[in-house]
């Protein structure tokens, strides 16, 4: 039996709307069984705030801000429009999560395509719904915090509510970071700033780093999806075929493990059965499942 799992499917399970005092503040990402992360500015830099994380399926997990960097007391009362770095909040979950996002340990190359997934009020200015936006990695931005360099994205619009949104590398299937800031407070497509995943892990090596690694060593679903994406990318490059992100279906060779990739959402079939149909049967078009 073929089970189709995409990186986006897995990420959707880990991407939550963050509510503070009953008010939606944007997005949070589950990174370890007992922890999620968001930006500090979403929680106004305040520790011990009680929060709720709500999924697209309607599930709600309660949590508490365990750490925030920098805390509100160290931030000037009146300042420009961006919160000082690192601008991160660690949320202790009151229920253990069944899946955590796979954080990338490497930063993607320039011009890499990425997609951010968040919760915004775009649709009718009052209802908070899920929204995604594609970007292109356009560079880096040093901050005033030594060693803390942000990833810069271009060619996309970072809407309010996208703070805390995970940014998925489409070529790796891993989360490259957390979106925090729009590069242009207007309505243009100038892009966004992203807190890199490796720096998030550095902030809390035990809670995030160890918890994340321990989970993914036991549950390899995301690693398998990511590995299959990488395989498909290499196949596309070596054969000169169009990238799987564009059109059509690519059917992998027969064998114990098959890879079927469809559409721009990199539908990955993780299966122990051969991809090719038995002889005499009409070829599968890859649209089943």
């Amino acid at each position: 039996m073929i089970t189709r799992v995409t990186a986006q499917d897995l990420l959707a399970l880990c991407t939550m709307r963050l509510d503070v005092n009953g008010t939606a503040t944007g997005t949070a990402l589950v990174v370890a069984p007992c922890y999620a992360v968001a930006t500090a500015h979403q929680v106004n830099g305040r520790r011990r705030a009680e929060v709720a994380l709500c999924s697209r399926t309607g599930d709600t997990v309660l949590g508490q801000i365990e750490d925030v960097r920098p805390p509100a007391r160290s931030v000037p009362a009146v300042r420009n429009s961006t919160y000082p770095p690192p601008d991160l909040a660690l949320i202790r979950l009151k229920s253990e999560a069944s899946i955590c996002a796979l954080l990338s340990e490497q930063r993607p190359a320039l011009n890499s395509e990425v997609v951010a997934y968040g919760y915004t009020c775009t649709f009718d200015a009052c209802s908070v719904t899920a929204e995604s936006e594609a970007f292109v990695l356009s560079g880096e931005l040093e901050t005033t915090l030594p060693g803390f360099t942000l990833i810069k994205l271009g060619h996309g619009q970072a809407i309010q509510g996208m703070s805390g949104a995970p940014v998925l590398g489409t070529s790796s299937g891993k989360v490259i970071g957390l979106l925090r800031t729009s590069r242009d407070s207007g309505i243009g497509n100038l892009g966004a700033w992203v807190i890199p995943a490796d720096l998030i892990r550095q902030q809390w090596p035990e809670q995030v780093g160890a918890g994340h690694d321990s989970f993914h060593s036991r549950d390899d679903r995301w690693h398998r999806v990511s590995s299959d994406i990488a395989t498909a990318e290499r196949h596309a490059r070596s054969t000169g075929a169009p990238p799987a992100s564009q059109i059509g279906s690519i059917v992998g060779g027969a064998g114990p493990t098959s890879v079927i990739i469809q559409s721009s959402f990199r539908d990955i079939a993780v299966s122990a059965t051969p991809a090719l149909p038995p002889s005499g049967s009409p070829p599968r078009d890859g649209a089943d499942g």
Partner: protein
Amino acid sequence: MVASRVIQVTLPSGDPVWVDVSPGPEELSHDRPAGPLDVGLGRRPEEIAELGELPGFTEVVQGVVGSVHESLSRYKPVSIGVEFGIEIAVRSGKALSLLAEAGGSAHVKVTASWGVTSAPLRPSERAPGDVG
């Protein structure tokens, strides 16, 4: 569009209150470049500031009411009434009390009326124990 901000000010009574203030002219200027902006929903921390005491609030109320009374007293009206608003704004990082229309963007609406025989007393004329 520049969003309004929430500030905390201390009223003359000593009570702190939160006020939603509109951006000042320097923030509305089209010459101001649109720069980076954190994209959380709801109030951003930079919009929430504690600006301490609110100067001018008492002076605005007393000044307007007193001035109206002085302007009309020689005409001996049967009664005098005045209605105005106080808008709390932030200019150059400080909270200010601005005289405004009674409705609209005013944060406080003041309605005062008195008969000629019960004109408002100046503070120096109040008897001990008066709290009005």
